[in-house]
């Protein structure tokens, strides 16, 4: 797992779970992969072992990981679950985006407009590369 850059104003155990989910979504971790033991992980990211334990318990509870006695902890999620997580994480970002745009007074049409313009710009930038 990668080094975490914590936002110390949010629960750290939730950020550990999120980091794990991102690695699944990006394909850096796949079904059956072994993940570090709780202690290894705590040391790697310098986080309280109880906090790491809470994150791992939560990962097991939501079916993303399982610990096999004497062998270690493994990714349990299958591809269906991983694509569901990907969708859920994208939805989260979209919800935040729309909420922020609404709070700025943007109507649906205006949002469509700025999105289209941005997509065109990005397309242009790619072609120029």
């Amino acid at each position, binding site marked *: 797992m990668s080094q975490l850059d914590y936002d110390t*104003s*949010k629960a750290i*155990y939730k950020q550990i779970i999120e980091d794990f989910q991102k690695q699944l979504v990006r394909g850096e971790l796949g079904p059956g992969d072994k993940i570090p033991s709780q*202690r290894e992980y705590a*040391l790697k990211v310098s*986080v*309280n*072992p109880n*906090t790491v334990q809470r994150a791992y318990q939560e990962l097991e509870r939501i079916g993303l990981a399982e610990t096999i006695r004497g062998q270690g902890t493994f990714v349990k999620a299958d591809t269906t679950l991983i694509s569901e997580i990907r969708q859920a994480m994208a939805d989260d970002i979209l919800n935040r985006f729309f909420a922020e745009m609404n709070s700025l007074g943007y109507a649906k049409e205006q949002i469509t407009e700025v999105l289209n313009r941005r997509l065109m710009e990005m397309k242009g930038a790619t072609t120029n590369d």
Partner: protein
Amino acid sequence: MIEFDQVGKRFGSIQALDQLSLQFGPGKIIGLFGPNGAGKSTAMKMIAGLNQPDSGHVLVDGQKPRHSRVKIAFLPEIDHLYGWWTLKQAADFMRSFYADWDDRKYTELLGFLNLREDMKISKISKGQRAKCKLILTVSRRAPYLLLDEPLSGIDILTREEIINTLIRDFREGEQPIIISTHEINDVESLVDEVFFIDQGRIVVSGSAEELRITQGLSLVEIMKEAFRHVQQ
């Protein structure tokens, strides 16, 4: 279990502890936070049996601290090691003094912390001295580990080594580690239970993660908030 019940302590005109009540349970890394002069060191020394309350009482597993000193491994804020000692001589002293000294752990930590036994206390850097104090304290298998300002004035790499030594050594559900510091930033992700004290009283306390969730603030920010309210 360590308990403070309505503890008061006065030094001259200064009320160091003011009706302080709190409990430190097992299996947690506990942060005792507050500005300089808040009463942190007074409380820590009291647990170690180095000073007595004027009123109220402190109990360690139901006993007065002066009867339970063997249960407490205490790292004081001051430099308490003789300058003319080598690390080996200091370790020999600890070994002869404490029955719970663990040689295997000590040897292992020498490597982990990049310390050598022939290092002379007066000749080494402040960071190395901090690591010497740490290894001499945590090489005991004491039921309680107390660290008074273990990171103050130490470079960031050494701080990391010290924090990782504590994480490495920590056993869930067993020996609680109590860390007093005014530099909360360094231990944000290390502690799981916190007590903010000011003028000898508790201002805020609770689980670090729950405080972050309910307040949406880091521990440093929570302390600033709490103390702003106190001063108003």
